[in-house]
């Protein structure tokens, strides 16, 4: 399978198409504790979706957000 380059300038176009610049995550997310880390996974997480959006825009990447409820404890997933 063809692997895409890590960063494509076209993601900047996506930001334009979507009228980006403003990060639209819920305002309740503003105050965040420092939570960066991998938490036992191979994925590097940043502190909030808003921060992820800012970094993604800068790095020309997309955003991955996990929504969990309570103590979601699924060894096959995590």
């Amino acid at each position, binding site marked *: 399978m063809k692997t*895409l380059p*890590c960063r494509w300038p*076209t*993601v900047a*176009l*996506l*930001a334009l*198409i*979507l*009228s*980006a*610049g403003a*990060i*639209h*995550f*819920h305002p*309740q*997310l503003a*105050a965040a*504790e420092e*939570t960066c*880390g*991998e*938490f*036992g*996974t*191979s*994925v*590097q*997480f*940043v502190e*909030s*979706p*808003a*921060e*992820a*959006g*800012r*970094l*993604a*825009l800068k*790095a020309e*990447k*997309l*955003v*991955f*957000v*996990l*929504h*969990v*409820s*309570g*103590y*979601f*404890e*699924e*060894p*096959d*997933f*995590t």
Partner: protein
Amino acid sequence: MNALANPAVGEFLNEHFVSSFQKVGTFQIVAGQKQGGNVASYFCAPDGRVLHVVAGPVDSATLLREARWVVDTVKQSLDEYEKSGTSFKAQIREAHAARLAREHGLKVEAVTFDSPAPGEESALSYRDPTGKPLAPVLQLPPIDGPDVSFNEAGQAAARTSPGAKEVVDRIGRRWVLGNQGQVHMLLAGHSLKKIETMYGSVFEGILGEKVSTKPVIVTTPFPWVARR
């Protein structure tokens, strides 16, 4: 294999995405048993509009396949937008409708425009335990019926897939869709909407978990990891 702990998943997600997490619900202990607890994985544009969702826990191969599909589809759609000016949103919604037909055997017409949002005070809202509205109930595009390639084996597989649920097409025939089929149906009508608009329909509408809060930041998505 643990999906998020898988090195290939980590490498791909770290290369193409910036990742974060939120909490959207709680769980209850009833008769010593934990009830509730689930996960939804959102692939979004940098401004938080949802491109794709994986509802519920999946294995590493599935998560990697879906992440790759997002990256490839976004790239193709942006190329097409540059070439022909075709709306990016319409292309993403049509891509979900195409996957619903190809992989789940049901046809829906992708909704390429957005009708006015009902607002949080609408009667059709997901609500917290106090009755406060949290997110709108998003109406799914109607099912036209089976795709030409539809076969009974697909329905048999759907009946045993996670989150299998009965859906009704335009003329009242009943079909079964698992979590991912329902995701494609939802996103054929609503992809590129903000995550806080979508999460109720994903977490409560598809996964059947009660959303008890707006998405909020937590210090760790997996508190038990430190205890291992």
